[in-house]
């Protein structure tokens, strides 16, 4: 009997110690992800960045919750889940999706002693439209517009049919500017590198309704990608957080079709289909997270907004570049040369967000020679002229 009692005691202590873990760490921070931590997309890019933080910042420990969305965790709110992380010792919480922004603000205001990183948001951007005074919040975003433009160049040089498709999530400021950036890159390569008539390039955007498939709620991205490939679009650029564009391209390539895809978000997303992936524009959140977390640890935290670009010396440097482009082995020599040339031009100051830029409804957005401000890019009100697809959800 004593042995059984001792065994139960040991089990209990082991369980309690498991429950109480994290209390001894110097600085515990938490991460909330909208999708699964291993989605090979947006959430995994954030998850890997926090692993980078732990490796680069001694004394830190990371706890996380994934699938933070009302469909996967019914009845919960992101602020409630953030409090669960705080209860386990988190002194800083990263809300890593724009969809959590209301809850992140609610949480930050209710917990002024907890540091909050709201990724991809503009809540504390002093020059933004939604500026709020939240001293414990920092906004971090990467200038993915560059990665998307590079993707557009790769797509334009690769397409055999002159038809490029964009598998979009939902229409908002962020997604409009990213889809438009792909188009700007494609248009530049099509007209400047290939010397072709822009009217011969078809560029179509279809929004599925969310960042990933929610059966019964969103359009099925697999179906949308299939529709693209079946209607002559031979390069599908993905704007969603999961890899359906690649998996469907693999399927069609296996049937003998010459099709390609460009995934998004995560550096290794091309591994889902090496034979069809031209490359992936990806986020590298690690360096910015390290900087923010170190500032919280050392008492140097100040509320601010940062929109970080690539390191033009090496856009794939994991320690310095906020966005990169991981090219696929299937990228042809001419396309690879075009991508290299384009990156070199960008590093020397080429700006495609410069007038004349006309919106989808014919309104002149930027007059000839006028460069867009950060606000004009961030808050792009419509898709650009030349893009087929809805500028706003209807």
């Amino acid at each position, binding site marked *: 009997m004593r042995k059984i009692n001792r065994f139960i005691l040991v*089990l*209990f202590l*082991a*369980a*309690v110690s*498991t*429950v109480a*873990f994290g209390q001894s760490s110097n600085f515990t921070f938490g991460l909330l992800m909208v999708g699964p931590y291993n989605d090979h997309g947006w959430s995994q890019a954030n998850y890997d960045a926090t692993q980078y933080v732990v490796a680069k910042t001694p004394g830190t420990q990371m*706890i*996380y*919750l*994934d699938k933070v*969305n*009302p*469909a996967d*965790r*019914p*009845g*919960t*709110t992101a602020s*409630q*889940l953030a*409090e*669960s*992380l705080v*209860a*386990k010792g988190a002194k800083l919480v990263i809300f890593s999706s*724009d*969809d*959590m*922004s*209301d809850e992140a603000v609610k949480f930050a205001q*209710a917990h002024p002693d907890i540091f909050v990183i709201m990724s991809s948001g503009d809540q504390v951007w002093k020059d933004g439209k939604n500026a709020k005074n939240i001293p414990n919040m920092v906004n971090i975003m990467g200038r993915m517009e560059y990665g998307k433009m590079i993707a557009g160049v790769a797509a334009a040089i690769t397409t055999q049919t002159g038809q490029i498709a964009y598998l979009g999530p*939902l*229409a*908002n*400021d962020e997604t409009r500017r990213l889809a438009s950036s792909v188009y700007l890159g494609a248009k530049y390569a099509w007209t400047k590198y290939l010397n072709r008539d822009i009217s011969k390039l078809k560029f179509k955007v279809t929004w599925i*309704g*969310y*960042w990933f498939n*929610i059966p*019964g*709620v969103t359009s099925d991205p697999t179906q949308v990608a299939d529709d693209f490939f079946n209607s002559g679009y031979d390069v599908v650029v993905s704007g969603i957080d999961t890899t359906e564009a690649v998996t469907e391209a693999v399927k069609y390539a296996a049937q003998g079709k010459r099709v390609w895809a460009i995934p998004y978000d995560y550096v290794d997303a091309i591994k889902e289909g090496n034979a069809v992936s031209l490359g992936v524009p990806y986020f590298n959140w690690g360096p910015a997270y390290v900087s923010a977390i170190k500032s919280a640890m050392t008492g140097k935290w100040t509320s601010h907004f940062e929109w970080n670009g690539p390191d033009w010396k090496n856009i794939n440097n994991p320690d310095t570049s906020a966005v990169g482009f991981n090219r696929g082995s299937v990228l042809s020599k001419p396309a690879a040369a075009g991508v290299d040339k384009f990156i070199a031009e960008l590093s020397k100051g080429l700006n495609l967000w410069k007038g004349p830029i006309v919106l989808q409804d014919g309104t002149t957005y930027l007059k000839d020679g006028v460069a867009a401000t950060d606000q004009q890019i961030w*808050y792009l*009100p419509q898709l650009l002229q030349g893009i087929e697809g809805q500028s*706003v*959800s*209807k």
Partner: protein
Amino acid sequence: MRDSRGMRAFFQVGGIVFALALTTVVLVASKAPPFAAYLNIALGAFGSWEVFSNVLVSWVPLLLATSGLLLTFTVGLWNIGIEGQITFGAIFATWAMRSLQGGGTDPAFVIMLSILAGALGGILWAMLAGALKTFGGVNEIFGGLGLNFVATAVNLWLIFGPWKRPGIASMSGTVPFDKALWLPTLTAQSRLSPSSIAIAVAGIVLVYVLISGTHFGLRLKAVGRNPRAAYLLGIPTWQYMMTSFAICGAFAGLAGAIQVTAVYHRLIPSISSGYGYLGMMVAMLVNYRAALAAPVALFFAALNVGSIQLPIVLKLDSSLAGVLQGTLVLFVLLAQGAREFFARKGGKR
């Protein structure tokens, strides 16, 4: 073998033990420590007042949905359309809130009207399912499922269309309501609204009294057991079915309104949060007895909230709570079936 109270308890406990055993096997198979997992769920639900108040926040809409379903189950109807009724309750509550906010009306009055509008929305959507059943001959399961899809579509259309945020349509829902229009909570930090608890408790008490202490409840049971016989005895069966649909819809609508006014403070795409389906599981687990609904709903809410600890602490998927809930219902129903089988066998002897 006699179907005694002791025998019933034996089979029910047996069902629970089997469910726990199966969940433990799942945990061991995924190389997770079962004891630590259960302990973390318990601590995550009852370890502090803060987490327990989150359990109560989840308990309110679940208990309201279960309360309504107890009535439709009593009359022999599977109101699977309850998810859509919760959604329509939320839509009507949001509509009332949007119409009245900023107009100088007293916030307490606006909240009250929104909750009542929510109940009305639930009633209307439930009556539609009832009408399809009664006048169209459409089985309430198929009609309800179809109406759930329609409700989701309407909800999404509103969020992405007429009620979208300025310039941005977002899956995060409509613009949050002004703080003055949030259902008041215990403290500024708390999510728990005493008035929502009061509504849920009043609801289950009302259902208990209706079913077990009124002529109305007796007639509902009669219709549920044998509609033909009830009709021949002079009970207007379709009217009773429609009434039970309407009351269930009111409860579902209240749940949706509370999701909007007390939990999310806006309309979101998954506003029903699956409480309708979960409520069906609770109702089945308690064998349609109102007296047990409140504690079992609390247990289910505790599993939902407590399981959040699993990914944080043990890197386990929190869907384990769903596994436990599902197996509990399955094994308790199986145990009931086994008990009835043995009771019949014993009776023959």
